[in-house]
């Protein structure tokens, strides 16, 4: 009987969402529009400046200094060779240059890397050791797509569950359900499962649809990515449940949902890397589920990471889901 009641709620909620064309359309259209916008914005040749990561800039030799004084090349300091090298491999940086040891790394498949090397050898030809790396170019669009998919999921999870529950509480629908044998557990489970199903279908649709047009990088397992997105959806839906657990005003709920979603959108590494960000910002970002979904999805899609390699993010998302679910169910009120 519990299953029958659960399925009745689930199927009705699914129908309600699927028939609400404007909401469904917006859920699908928004990420596609964002991706299309970025693809268009970054499709032109905007690389009119070469980018070189510099190790040991403060202890540069005189020969290296001549290279570093050149104009129209963006030299920026790097601390560790590992992360900088992966950027060279992905064509995000044209060259990694060790100013003290007079070593440089370029991607053999990068025309920009070839050009910067010629410039380096032109101004300082003596005693530079060349190291080669290779790797397919990672465009900004490739880098930003995992974040956009996660962000879309976040909005759908928070507003699709949180806002709907507050609306039903306000208009008396929840009160009516309370007068039936339905339990809070059955009701909330149906809401969670319904939204997860819809999020996963919409995300898959957006993923494959966008890939058809943009052809972004996907080096990891689709199944791993599916599991990360499912866990991320669960975590963010649960957060929506906590926010909506007792609220009766749609206006307040909307404000509170925005209070959670906007900082997450900007400070979870969706649009720019958190590397080098202020420690306080990094600490705050660590609390957001969106940070962990984005980081894990990006690692899987770009680096081909396994579930074990993103294990930390999985653990955090799992812990957050359990805490949010427990809190949301305990705090939930029908009316």
């Amino acid at each position, binding site marked *: 009987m519990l299953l029958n009641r659960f399925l009745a709620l689930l199927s*009705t909620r699914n129908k309600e969402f699927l028939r609400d064309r404007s909401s469904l359309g917006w859920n699908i259209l928004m990420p596609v529009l964002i991706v299309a916008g970025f693809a268009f914005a970054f499709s032109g040749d905007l690389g009119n400046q070469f980018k070189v990561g510099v190790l040991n800039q403060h202890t540069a030799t005189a020969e290296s200094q001549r290279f570093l004084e050149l104009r129209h090349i963006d030299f920026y300091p790097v601390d560790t060779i590992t992360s900088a090298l992966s950027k060279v491999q992905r064509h995000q940086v044209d060259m990694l240059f060790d100013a003290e040891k007079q070593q440089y790394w370029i991607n053999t498949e990068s025309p920009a890397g070839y050009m910067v090397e010629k410039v380096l050898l032109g101004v300082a030809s003596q005693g530079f050791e060349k190291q080669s790396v290779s790797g397919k170019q990672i465009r900004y669009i490739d880098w930003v797509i995992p974040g956009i998919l996660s962000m879309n999921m976040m909005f759908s999870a928070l507003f699709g569950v949180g806002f709907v529950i507050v609306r039903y509480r306000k208009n008396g629908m929840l009160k*009516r359900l309370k*007068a039936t*044998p*339905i339990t809070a557990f059955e009701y909330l489970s149906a809401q969670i499962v319904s939204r997860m199903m819809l999020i996963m279908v919409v995300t898959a649709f957006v993923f494959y649809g966008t890939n058809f047009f943009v052809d972004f990088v996907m080096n990891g397992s689709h199944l791993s990515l599916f599991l990360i997105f499912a866990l991320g959806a669960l975590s963010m839906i649960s957060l929506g449940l906590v926010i909506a657990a007792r609220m009766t005003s749609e206006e307040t709920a909307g404000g509170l949902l925005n209070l959670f979603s906007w900082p997450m959108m900007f400070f979870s590494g969706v649009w720019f890397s958190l590397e080098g960000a202020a420690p306080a910002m990094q600490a705050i970002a660590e609390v957001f589920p969106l940070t962990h979904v984005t980081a894990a999805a990006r690692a899987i899609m770009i680096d081909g990471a396994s579930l074990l390699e993103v294990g930390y993010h999985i653990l955090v998302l799992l812990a957050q889901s359990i805490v949010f679910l427990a809190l949301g169910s305990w705090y939930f009120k029908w009316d």
Partner: protein
Amino acid sequence: MSDTLLEINNLVKHYPSVKAVNGIDISLNAGICFGLLGPNGAGKTTTVEILEGILSPTSGDILYKGQPLGDQFRKEAGIMFQSTALQDYITVAETLKMFARFYTRNADLDELIQRCNLTDYLHQDNRELSGGQRQRLLLAIALVNDPDIIFLDEPTTGLDPQARRNFWELINDIKAEGKTIILTTHYMDEAYTLCDEIAIMDHGKIIAEGTPKDLLAKHFNDVVLQLPESVMNGFDLSAFTAHSRHGHVEITTCDVDEVISVLIKNNISLAQLQIRSRTLDDLFLELTGKELRA
């Protein structure tokens, strides 16, 4: 074996700033229609919501079939709230099926649809229903589990007279099946027509209880003569028990002949004279000092 279906003992509900329900006792036999009446703020909605299991009382006992309210009650109770939103984008048929799946015991859905006159709207979105159609659907939802006890909270508020009459017929059908009904209403004619017993609440207490006829007989032995104020020509009514109401003068008397002869002697036109028995409206006004439909 006792026929008592619902027993309420010393029910109290206090909020920080108000004593909404202040110690009421009700005993309901199976198969009756019980009307709970009262002015706004009397505590009737709070009382009914406690009986429905929606609110918890501050103190007091509620026994359904001799047991505290619990799973059995939720399975066997049908509830029609005064205002319930229905899910958007869902049809009448889907709504009924969803509610039916919440219960182990179900009424025959086809029969229910016919009885509540929903056949023509089955595939209509809930958002597109008129007031009357919507109330009939809410009643059908309340009946979907073939309940033993049915709560109807102001079921005809906002309906036109024709729709109200149709709704009364439906409720009479349900009564005829031996179901127990608890009805709250603002309409005295509705209470008089449908209820076997009524209780009038004010300030969180029951101030009168009984069958409508017994209550009227107990409180009144007179009739009311009504005349438009415009025909009175400033006639001094101080010799009678009289007052103005809705543009009419109402004279309350046990001796109709005497009043009429005085009016004739004073050349008051009786062309528009109406004589009526006392109604629940009068009783309500007398007991609470308030007009119910204010």
